[in-house]
């Protein structure tokens, strides 16, 4: 319940204040969102597995977002930003699919 309240609060706040992203951070926002998505699906799977832990979720969320942005930032500095962000998206995408498959098995037992 509290999770849904958190989500709704985030959405409402985002829609109301429509924060302006600094121009320098703008390229990292999509990658950060994908990394956050991975952390959230991981947490949902852990929750269904009965392994969920608040602290682990917070740490994994922050570190995921931070590391993904850092990799892309480094890639930009080295001139391979596009390739590295593709790599990050592929790896996170595979993880997301694997986690969603596990979640699906939990919910539908299939």
């Amino acid at each position, binding site marked *: 319940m*509290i999770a849904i309240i958190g989500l709704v609060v985030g959405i409402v706040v985002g829609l109301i204040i429509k924060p302006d992203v600094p121009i320098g951070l703008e390229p990292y926002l999509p990658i950060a969102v994908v990394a956050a998505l991975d952390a959230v699906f991981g947490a949902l799977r852990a929750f269904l597995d009965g392994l969920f832990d608040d602290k682990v979720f917070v740490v994994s969320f*922050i570190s995921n977002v931070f590391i993904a942005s850092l990799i892309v930032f480094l890639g930009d500095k080295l001139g391979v930003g596009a390739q590295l962000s593709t790599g990050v998206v592929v790896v996170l995408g595979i993880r997301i699919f694997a986690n969603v498959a596990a979640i699906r098995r939990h919910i539908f037992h299939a």
Partner: protein
Amino acid sequence: MGLLPYINAHALDEDYAEAARQRAGSGQPPRRRIGRYGAAMLAVFALLTITAAVQTSRDSSSDEQERQALIKQVKDAKTLVDRENNQVISLQTENRRLQQQFLASNSDSLGLLGEVSLLGLRSGLSPATGPGVEVVADDAAGAKSDRNRVLDTDLQKLVNGLWQAGAEAISINGERLTTLSSIRHAGSAITVNYVSLRRPYRILAVGNRQTLPSRFADSTSGQAWLDLQQEVGLRFSMHTESSMNLPGSDVPQLRYVEAGDKKDSTGKGPT
């Protein structure tokens, strides 16, 4: 283990299992509920996602606005250029008229007026009227390749031959040749004065109609065209006209102009 199977197998952070093991080891009850921090993190996640979405849609709409603004600028600039071109043309016409009026009003400069009109005729700026020949050149019947078509070099030869034969003014499909005209290929069409022409090419040459055809036939260009007719089948016909009207060229594209030195009576120096 390959990279992809590894990612698949370790999709879930191992920390969750580790934390659960530690809790079990220390005898604490497993903490399965989503707590305040988890909810706060979810709020951050939602905020992040919404921000990215808002930013993307805002960017795309501002991109579109920029594109429209650029298109508008280009259109405005084009209209401006058109208008100024028209102004240039009308000013030039006015200039020519005033010049003639001025020169005609002064008896001293009547000779100058003749010179100016002769130069205008020769340079292609003023319209030309008079007898001459009409030449029609065309691709070979059923031409399949450039070999059987009239090329820019063929037209250049033809025009040079006509000049050599004593033509005083030449136009191709209504485009008057000036001292600055070019005849060249642009894509698949021949352009004269940067205007694309379509076949057949109708060349009007003002000059002595008794001598023009024979002198042209004697010139190397005339011989070359005879060859072209026989070898690749280009069509060529020439007949005389008692009176033709050739238009003047609009705007001479002046590339380098400097105010003349008034003391320089010899007429030399840059023009």
